[in-house]
């Protein structure tokens, strides 16, 4: 906002962080001015979070120096950073789900009646105050686990404000917000800097950076490759700096040739882990040879929907059929055997066994059938053979097929899953957050693979919180809000603005 006010509030020189076998940050220089919004841009794995953790005292730098408000500091732990006015809003919220908002806010810096006894009433009042002052609207007595994700983020912000933070670090703050909630956040950020505080925010979203930042620092493979202003940049120029080569930002594909309906969902209702209805009556159709993208902010029932469709979660009422066959209550194995491929949302939780080798992971769905097993005896040689073949075909970077999956990078882990799922003939592909947290090269690859499957005649359902991904892959876009599909638009009618409104639950007049 106000760069004529050139006072430097935070500076880092030569900041380096080494982990065993990995150089996460390499000789980084960084300057933050008072009242400035500095965006740190970089793809996943570029070292952004590591850098922030050092500025917050969670990591100790291997080399390099930090100055906060002109004073040279060594941050032993977060309390040192907090004491100097640095506050952090983490990407994965650091909130205790089973405690209240007030308890979470005061944790570590508690308001007491003396003798170590908590004064929870006073804490609640303080939270109320801050909440109103900054327009954040949070109930101090609420249990954090009951709050929607966007509100939880505000609790994180209040935590920082409670500690008188005037340097705020936001780590991927818009990952869990609708476009409109993101707008709200930007408003709060501008308000914050207008009062003289400063912000560093980390993101991989090019549009945001151009919209809100005063200065942009680009990280690539642990190095700061450039510091630019939004005025002198475009999305393409930023992307090139981020990745180191020219990047094609859209997927090139032929128009679809849809055939019969493969997946038909009728008034499906599914409960979440807490027993409440998460999917409240979804109707949707996906045809062979087309890609239907489901857009929506996470937490609107997408996860439960996908789990129901793959047999991992029971259905309360309604039904769905695959290739005409009622599949509502089928077990996962049966659904797989019907030609359904599933790329799960959480690859480490559902999609892979970290300790298993690449080869063993490749047969996770079909280890019990020929040629990998005869009756109960498994054939290691056949398993290895297939693994070798798939690793080559899908360009999985791994020292060998016997390497444990945990040693692979995020992108390659995802490629193992994709390779496995695509190694069988597919009638229906369900891909949930298929490119979350992976490098641009792998994203390109997987997107192309998905389009290839479509062209080979598969019906494809892609569920993603990344609007760009939905818009580049889909032939039709369905929007999910509050457990329902609120609208389905052909791609040509689906603009960001429309989708944003739908994702937030607004009705649009056509």
């Amino acid at each position, binding site marked *: 906002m106000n760069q004529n006010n050139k006072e430097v509030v935070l500076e880092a020189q030569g900041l380096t962080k080494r982990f065993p076998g990995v150089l996460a940050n390499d000789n980084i220089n960084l300057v933050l001015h008072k009242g400035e919004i500095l965006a740190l841009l970089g793809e996943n794995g570029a070292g952004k979070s590591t850098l922030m953790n050092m500025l*917050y005292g*969670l*990591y*100790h730098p291997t080399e390099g120096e930090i100055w906060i408000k002109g004073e040279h500091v060594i941050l032993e*732990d*977060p*309390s040192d950073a*907090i004491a100097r006015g640095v506050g*952090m809003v*983490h990407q994965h919220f*650091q*909130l*205790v*789900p*089973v*405690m209240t908002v007030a*308890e*979470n806010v*005061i*944790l*570590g*810096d*508690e308001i*007491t009646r003396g003798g*170590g*006894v*908590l004064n*929870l009433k006073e804490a609640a009042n303080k939270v109320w105050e801050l909440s109103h002052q900054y*327009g954040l*609207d*949070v*109930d101090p*007595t*609420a*249990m954090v686990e*009951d*709050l*929607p994700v*966007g*509100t939880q983020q505000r609790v994180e912000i209040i*935590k920082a404000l409670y500690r008188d933070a005037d340097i705020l670090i936001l780590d991927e703050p818009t990952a869990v917000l*609708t476009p*409109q*909630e993101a707008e*709200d956040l930007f408003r709060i950020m501008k308000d914050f800097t207008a009062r003289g505080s400063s912000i560093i925010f980390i993101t991989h979203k090019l549009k945001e950076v151009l919209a809100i930042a005063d200065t942009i620092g680009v990280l690539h493979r642990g190095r700061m490759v450039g510091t630019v202003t939004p005025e002198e940049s475009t999305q393409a120029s930023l992307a090139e700096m981020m990745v180191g080569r020219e990047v094609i930002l859209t997927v090139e594909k032929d128009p679809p040739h849809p055939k019969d309906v493969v997946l038909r969902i009728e008034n499906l209702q599914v409960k979440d882990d807490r027993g409440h209805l998460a999917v409240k009556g979804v109707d949707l159709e996906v045809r062979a040879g087309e890609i239907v993208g489901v857009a929506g902010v996470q937490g609107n029932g997408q996860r439960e929907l996908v789990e129901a469709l793959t047999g991992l979660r029971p259905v309360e009422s309604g039904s769905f059929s695959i290739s005409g066959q009622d599949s509502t209550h089928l077990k996962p194995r049966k659904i797989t055997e019907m030609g359904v491929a599933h790329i799960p949302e959480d690859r480490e939780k559902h999609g892979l066994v970290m300790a298993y080798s690449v080869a063993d992971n490749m047969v996770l769905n079909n280890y019990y059938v020929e040629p990998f097993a005869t009756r109960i005896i498994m054939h290691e040689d056949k398993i290895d053979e297939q693994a070798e073949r798939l690793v080559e075909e899908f360009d999985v970077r791994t020292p060998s097929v016997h390497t444990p999956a945990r040693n692979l990078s995020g992108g390659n882990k995802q490629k193992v899953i994709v390779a496995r799922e695509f190694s069988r003939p597919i009638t229906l592909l369900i891909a949930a957050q298929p490119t979350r947290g992976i490098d641009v090269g792998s994203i390109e690859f997987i997107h192309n693979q998905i389009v290839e499957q479509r062209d080979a005649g598969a019906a494809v359902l892609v569920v993603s919180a990344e609007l760009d991904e939905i818009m580049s892959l889909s032939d039709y876009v369905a929007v999910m809000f509050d457990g329902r599909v609120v609208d389905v638009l052909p791609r040509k009618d689906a603009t960001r603005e429309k989708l944003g409104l739908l994702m*937030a*639950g*607004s009705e649009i007049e056509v």
Partner: protein
Amino acid sequence: MATTTVVQEQNSGMSSRTKWLIAGGGIFIAALALNLYFFGATGTTAVFAATLRQSTPLILGAMCGLIGERSGVINIGIEGQMLMAAFLAFLANVYIGRVLPLGLTLPIAVLIGVATGALLGLFLAWMSVTLKMDQIIGGTVINTLALGLTSYFYVTGLTTQGKLQTIPLGPLADIPFVGPILFNNPPITYLTIILVFVLQFALFRTVWGLRTRSIGEHPSAADTVGINVNRMRYLNVTLAGAFAGLAGAYLTLEAVGSFERGMTNGRGFIALAVMIFGRWTPIGAWGAALLFAFFTAFATQTQFTGLVSIPPQFVGMSPYVLTIVFLALFGGRARGPAAAGQVYDPE
């Protein structure tokens, strides 16, 4: 502007607490009626008194377990801690008792028991936090070593001067029926009840309690606000060990008066079930322990009065079968502290 307004559900803690109170009250009345019918007044007094006393080591064990687990450390070595503490408290009673009067010996022996438990707690903390050993194995090491060491060094024929006697609380102890049960108990039994309320308050209304719960539920959240997770775990697990040590002291100095190999007899494990059933709260554990001890006392009384002829082994089995039944019906789906059992590695 699409700000989300948050509408809160009434925090259901209160109403579920009343539910538990009503259930507890109902069980109590049923138990009372049953006892009076079968055993008459004196028998009932005996059963209820035994219930209170026998629940003591279980409550203490459960509190040991829950302090640890709330901090994120699973402790299945409570049995070993109790046993070792009992042994050393016993030895203290024997040898110090030869030199000092009983009035001094016994308190010292209690302190030695408590200190032993705490020391073993420190050992567990070291294994879990610094050595990053699997916590169940760490507990097993303590159990194995305790059993081995106490059996190896135990010699028969040692005698003590005496044990902790009941302390009647003045005129309260003379109230018919209630008096002998509630107001005429030995010191550790009284202390335990006090500790239940102290710990309950501490856990939910103090700074220590808030931080303890945070490191067991979401250690990185605690870390990011500057709490030293691993140091707190060390302190808490050592403190928890003191509770187990007190239980051991109870067994040898208040209950039995001597020592036998393996005298803890699984109480340390039953205490874990009590902890789970009590939902990791001291008051809940108290209720669960009383219920448990009641059933055991009832079964023993049944056999004692020859009411039903059950082979003694089945009576002996009953605490263990009960634990299984309790766990199966009530404990299974309980959600413990989310980070219990996991090593916290900040960097």
